């Protein structure tokens, strides 16, 4: 049986029925990780020994009738900012190249308890972009190549997680987002990625960038798979009964949208209008992005103060990363507190928005995957109010594929829910994927 490209749900059923062996499944994906993963710079480390141990244990338990649930025997990758006992946890950055922890991050412990099999640590942008970065190559592992076009980047900072799921090197991966780091790679790579509500998933054992904005979430082929994984790494219950949805189509999410994306987004909107109540909606205007950026900058400078103070930021790969921390370290306490007071105002405005609708929807990004050489600072400077608001307020969101451009690159549509309402974003994404086939496409040549 060819298990490559199966959804978590589908593969889990075959494993439960003992139609496939977890050990053979793990070996298949480890082999792909070695062959294809290396070519894409997708993995920081393959955890072969651990994977086979966990797979053998799963096989033994299932044979003995002890079935743990939908992730039992399912292989996955974890972003390399999550501690995995005994293996390197590099945070994608040269100063931490030899860092190891003697414990697992909470999310990896939860997945272990669910019977999942850790294949390896997914490559990432150095320090999740915490010191700033100008190029997609800003990683100890090198730039992650996009499986849809290897001259293009996967986006970051969960760059390896995006490549791994897209290239079918694992049925799912764990990513993290402070601002854009799950949604963007999911859109660039043509996969489904869920950013949970802030604090939904424990951050214990994860690298801290922004204490009040970091989130950990699943990236997979389908929204349904994201729901399954989230239910295993948090207290979130999934699936839930279907519900009628009121969707707010965000009119001011992006200022300039590429023509190909415009067309695909219009088609996606037509699908939504045919299947749910959709109304146009406008995001409130205010200095939300500046306040969110101030928060990340200051919290990041605090999280990495010893790296900045020691001067070892000079060992980072990216020219902006070498100096960004110094700039961020000079932002005043008064400005930081002002940003948090603005966050209070914003939360009230956001609560008001969600009295009219269950989810907000918009294109995930106004552009498709860019080349590895693109200067992100000068060539891709655009406002992202929905991402800024969503991340600053800790709102859940999901990006799912919404089509492909004439050059064969994926586009995405995102759904954003109110605080704590992953149910709504998953319901919207599941609805969309029940009416479209884009999530079933796989990259040629992998």
């Amino acid at each position, binding site marked *: 049986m060819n298990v490559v490209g199966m959804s978590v749900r589908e593969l889990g059923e075959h494993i439960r029925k003992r139609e496939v062996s977890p050990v053979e499944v793990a070996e298949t994906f480890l082999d792909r990780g070695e062959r294809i993963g290396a070519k894409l710079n997708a993995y920081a480390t393959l955890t072969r020994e651990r994977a086979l141990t966990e797979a053998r244990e799963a096989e033994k338990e299932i044979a003995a009738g002890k079935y743990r649930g939908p992730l039992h025997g399912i292989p996955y990758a974890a972003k390399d900012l999550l501690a995995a006992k005994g293996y390197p946890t590099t945070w994608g950055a040269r100063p931490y190249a030899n860092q190891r922890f003697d414990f697992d991050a909470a999310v990896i412990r939860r997945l272990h308890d669910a019977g999942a099999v850790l294949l390896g640590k997914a490559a990432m942008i150095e320090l*999740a972009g915490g010191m700033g970065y100008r190029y997609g190559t800003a990683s100890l592992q090198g730039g992650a190549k996009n499986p849809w076009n290897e001259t293009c980047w996967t986006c970051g900072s969960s760059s390896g997680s995006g490549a791994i799921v897209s290239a079918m090197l694992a049925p799912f991966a764990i990513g993290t987002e402070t601002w854009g780091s799950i949604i963007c790679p999911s859109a660039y790579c043509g996969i489904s990625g869920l950013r949970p509500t802030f604090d939904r998933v424990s951050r214990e054992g994860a690298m801290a960038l922004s204490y009040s904005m970091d989130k950990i979430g699943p990236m997979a082929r389908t929204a349904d798979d994201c729901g399954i994984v989230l239910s295993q790494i948090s207290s979130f219950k999934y699936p839930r009964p279907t519900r009628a949805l009121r969707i707010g189509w965000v009119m001011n999410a992006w200022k300039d949208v590429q023509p190909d994306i415009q067309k695909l987004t219009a088609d996606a909107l037509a699908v939504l209008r045919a299947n749910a109540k959709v109304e146009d909606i406008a995001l409130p205007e205010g200095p939300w992005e*500046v306040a969110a950026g*101030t928060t*990340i*900058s200051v919290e990041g400078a605090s999280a990495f103060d010893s790296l900045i103070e020691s001067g070892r930021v000079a060992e980072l790969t990216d020219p*902006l990363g070498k100096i960004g921390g110094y700039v*961020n370290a000079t932002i005043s306490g008064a400005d930081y507190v*002002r940003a948090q007071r603005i966050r*209070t105002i914003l939360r009230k405005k956001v609560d008001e928005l969600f009295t009219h609708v269950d989810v907000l929807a918009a294109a995930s990004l106004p552009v498709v995957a860019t080349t590895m050489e693109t200067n992100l*600072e000068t060539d891709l400077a655009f406002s992202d109010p929905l991402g800024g608001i969503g991340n600053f307020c800790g709102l859940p969101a999901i990006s799912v594929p919404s089509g492909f451009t004439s050059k064969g690159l994926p586009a995405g549509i995102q759904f954003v829910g109110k605080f704590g309402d992953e149910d709504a974003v998953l319901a919207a994404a599941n609805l969309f994927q029940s009416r479209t086939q884009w999530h079933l496409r796989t990259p040629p040549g992998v």
Partner: protein
Amino acid sequence: MKVTRRDFFVTTAVAGVAQALPAAQEALQPAPEASARYDWIMGKWGTRFTDEQKSEIRRLLNDNEKGLASMRAYALTNDVEPAR
């Protein structure tokens, strides 16, 4: 108030909020706060940087200051507490 620009991929997000002016013009008109912050960095860590990096830091601080100024201009009453 309208935010006009952000470097989507650059998490030194404040640096990218304001519309950048041409480099030469920026060099002539640094914000006083940005100059003070630049002097503080150079006083503490100045020997670590190349001339090119010093110039970049000055530019980032100027951009950063414009973003912060937009945030400071947002009206808040005394009873608005910081979010927790």
